[in-house]
């Protein structure tokens, strides 16, 4: 390349550059872009160490507040009601699956009393209206219980269940007067239940004698069972429920000590 060619080349180069600079619009960065980039450059705010925990807590709190009306109310379970339900379950079980073996009861009962720790000085064995057909040890609501099953002449099955009372309160509402006693009468779902305390034991008598007419008969049976059965003082301390006793005719009770083992 000669010097002249070099000058021409340089001149052309300069002309080309001037053309580009002059003709091509130059785009300046918008102010907001500068602001965004400056924000990028700013040191990030350091999150407090407790920020994640606070965020999680706030989220949980909001969720709880929103869901609170929708959550099912948790009512403190009534131990007495639970016990009544469990007794009813045992009664219905014995209706369907219980055996009928009245002849074996006297022999088996002492062993059942030993297993359950519920002693009976004597017990109502039945009469011409109602018959003791079975006895069995049970676990009811985590408590050892003793159940005696009766059947009347019309085929109604009754369960007499004894188990430790464990300090439960017997509700006043629903008490009925049966002679000198004031047991609680519960009628639910076609079942009638007498509940009373006797020598530190909770006693339940369950039957399907539900109607008003049947209820009068049920009260008579209650009296027979109540007076004809006596928990031994060794099993629980005496807890007298009624003010007075009246004898019921035709009682057939059997002292356990008289039972041949």
């Amino acid at each position, binding site marked *: 390349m000669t010097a002249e060619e070099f000058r021409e080349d340089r001149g052309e180069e300069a002309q*080309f550059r001037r053309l580009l600079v002059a*003709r*091509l619009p130059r*785009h*300046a*960065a918008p102010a907001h872009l500068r602001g965004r980039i400056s924000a990028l450059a700013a040191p990030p705010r350091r999150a407090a160490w407790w920020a994640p925990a606070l965020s999680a807590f706030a989220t949980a709190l909001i969720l709880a507040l929103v869901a609170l009306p929708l959550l099912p109310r948790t009512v403190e379970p009534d131990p007495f009601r639970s016990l009544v339900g469990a007794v009813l379950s045992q009664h219905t079980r014995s209706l369907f699956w219980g055996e009928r073996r009245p002849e074996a009861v006297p022999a088996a009962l002492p062993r059942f009393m030993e297993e359950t720790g519920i002693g009976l000085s004597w017990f109502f064995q039945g009469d011409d209206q109602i018959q003791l057909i079975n006895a069995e040890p049970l676990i009811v609501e985590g408590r050892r219980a003793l159940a005696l099953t009766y059947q009347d002449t019309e085929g109604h099955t009754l369960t007499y269940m004894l188990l430790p009372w464990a300090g439960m309160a017997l509700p006043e509402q629903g008490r009925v007067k049966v002679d000198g006693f004031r047991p609680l009468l519960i009628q639910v779902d076609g079942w009638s239940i007498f509940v009373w305390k006797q020598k530190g034991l909770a006693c339940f008598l369950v039957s399907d004698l539900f109607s008003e007419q049947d209820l009068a008969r049920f009260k008579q049976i209650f009296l027979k069972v109540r007076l004809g059965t006596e928990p031994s003082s060794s099993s629980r301390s005496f807890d007298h429920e009624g003010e007075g006793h009246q004898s019921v005719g035709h009682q057939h009770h059997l002292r356990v000590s008289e039972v041949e083992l």
Partner: protein
Amino acid sequence: MADLEFQRQTLEHLNALYNLAVYLTRNGSEAEDLVQETYLRAFRFSHRFQPGTNLRAWMFQILRNTFLTFYRHREREPVFLDEGELDTEKETMFHDAPPKDGTTVEAETDLGRALAQLPEEFRTILLLAQVEGLPLEEVAQVMGCPVGTVKSRIFRAKERLRGFLKDYGEEFKG
């Protein structure tokens, strides 16, 4: 994160970077995103910058690499064959080229459109070397190629521009 002095120095090149970004993306919004991403990367990798070297070339290099990574697939590049030759059958003129006597189109726009028709390799080199005035060595650093290749591309870019501008009756002496 970069220190304040580094950030201040990089912001001095914001306009130049944005200008190149507009010509690369042909879209103002994308240009802003490209520049923002460029600065984000520059701040993040500021420890890789060697003080005393050319910060402007370093920033242009990041911008171009970012463009190639994220934006190039979006634009309709002229078909660029091996050895940098343009496929003249497909890209000999503008798709919306005016008639030969078209004097309605401003020459300024014609030049911009002609520039946009160049392959990115040519366009960027022209803008860096001729518009931004970077020395060829710095352009070579940005482009990641030898200085000789930069010179060759500048020459061929001018040839292409001349050919494009003839379609518009624009005087361009080479």
